[in-house]
């Protein structure tokens, strides 16, 4: 019998992986063309024949749109986090291991970005670009990078004077080897765990940008844009209007849970037993 050593992590990972799999399988699972609508079928409640989750204001199948919307929505949630993890780790490690002048220059630049509320900064960056998935990804990458860089900086700073780094230095390793083989294995898990907890936030921010018309342009389905499209039906068909919001909530919670369980696992792994 197969035993699962970390059931909570496995559950959270499955919950986070599920929307990704659904997004990949959208062409197979979607019962209808997500962009094709019949005005006669507009705003059908969930459970209507041929439309398990109902239809939107233009009579388009909501289940199909939610499935297809997972692609840009998850891209807008995962890609900026990946970019921020890489850029943030690079900036944070560089700041912690170089001289005081570089450290201060990098940290103060991050502070300037930190001074803006995240949503406001995302909107400011997105308005400078042509609306679309690229603009969303870039805007969110700018918003998320300072936070990741701070985490990477703090962790690298913590281990900078560690004896194993001194021993590695004495071993005659080059600076690059030292970073790649000694610093990164310690800092990367911390950055990854933190970054995984940002996926939920990025999805919500991306939905927010689409809601404001700064994200993926219509008619491409995207969870935030769908929320905006269904807003007029909020009081007449609350269940329909709530569906994209519930999906955003569920996916955000799943990725946050994954981040939390990974954080727990990391703590368990680095404690000094015996």
């Amino acid at each position, binding site marked *: 019998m197969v035993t699962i050593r970390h059931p909570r992590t496995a559950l959270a990972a499955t919950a986070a992986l599920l929307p990704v799999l659904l997004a990949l399988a959208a062409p197979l699972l979607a019962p209808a063309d997500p962009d094709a609508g019949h005005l006669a079928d507009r705003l059908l409640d969930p459970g209507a024949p041929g439309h398990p989750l109902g239809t939107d204001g233009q009579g388009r199948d909501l289940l199909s749109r939610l499935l297809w919307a997972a692609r840009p929505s998850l891209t807008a949630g995962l890609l900026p986090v990946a970019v921020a993890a890489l850029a943030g780790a690079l900036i944070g490690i560089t700041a912690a291991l170089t001289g005081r002048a570089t450290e201060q220059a990098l940290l103060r630049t991050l502070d300037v970005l930190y001074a803006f509320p995240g949503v406001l900064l995302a909107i400011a960056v997105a308005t400078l670009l042509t609306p679309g998935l690229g603009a969303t990804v870039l805007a969110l990458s700018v918003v998320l990078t300072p936070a990741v860089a701070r985490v990477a900086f703090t962790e690298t700073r913590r281990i900078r004077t560690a004896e194993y780094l001194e021993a*590695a230095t004495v071993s005659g390793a080059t600076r690059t*080897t030292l970073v790649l083989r000694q610093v990164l294995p310690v800092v990367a898990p911390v950055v990854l765990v933190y970054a995984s907890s940002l996926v939920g936030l990025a999805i919500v921010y991306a939905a927010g940008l689409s809601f404001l018309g700064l994200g993926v342009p219509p008619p491409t389905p995207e969870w935030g844009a769908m929320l905006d499209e269904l807003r007029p039906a909020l009081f007449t068909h609350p269940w329909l209007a709530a569906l994209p919001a519930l999906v955003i909530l569920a996916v955000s919670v799943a990725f946050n849970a994954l981040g939390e369980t990974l954080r727990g696992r990391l703590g368990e792994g680095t404690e*000094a037993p015996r």
Partner: protein
Amino acid sequence: MTALLRLDAVSKSYAHRPAVTDVTLEVHPGESVALVGESGSGKSTLARLALGLVRPDAGSVTFEGRDPSRLRARADRAVRARLQFVPQHPRGSLNPALRSGEAVAFALRAHRVPRREHADRIAELFRQVGLAPELARRFPRELSGGQLQRVAVARALATGPALVVCDEPTSALDRDTQERLLDLLVELRERTGTAYLFVSHDLAAVARFAHRTLVLRTGRVVEQGRTEHLWTAPAHPYTRALLDASGPHVALRLPERSTERSTEPNDKTEEPT
């Protein structure tokens, strides 16, 4: 004989507080020199100066005629290989994210040992320090303090060093484990002829291990000489106080030849303050 390591009138301050003042010491090939003193006496700063991890504010440090703090990773690889380090804390001496064998492999890789030879060399080094080669697959959190220090010794020996700087290698270990690690260091010294700069506040360990000892107080050498002479005829009150504080077991640890009280004067004694 030409000194392997020479610290010549070195001084080092941190935030305007002197850690080491005007210290001169030499370590010759195959010799074990101990630095003793209470916490804050400058022992570890001297070890770091010797390793080139910090630069002196005044004076000079040379290892085989070169300043270790200016050795370049690539160009001076051969010199670097001959100066190695065993840190103080078992839990801090190995990277927690890497398996213990990878710590040794890192040193081998830094000195261009072909990758295909790594597994054999690691197994051989582990056996040399009394560890089962299978332990190379374990993470530091899966090893005991004594095992971790043995891995640190294996890493230090990986490049065939002429001098190993040990910064209180036994201080975080229980008495039995200390004994076994000291046995190992003595055995390795006999077998490989490696010189040691041995930092410790454990006078029993020093009595057993070091040929010569420097007694440090507030960053200055107050007395130095052959260990058995210092231990049997300490000239400085501070050395006597250290020996008194360490208890009678220190004298008992001295080798047979040194239990008789020596009449030979110590190399240097600073006037008691």
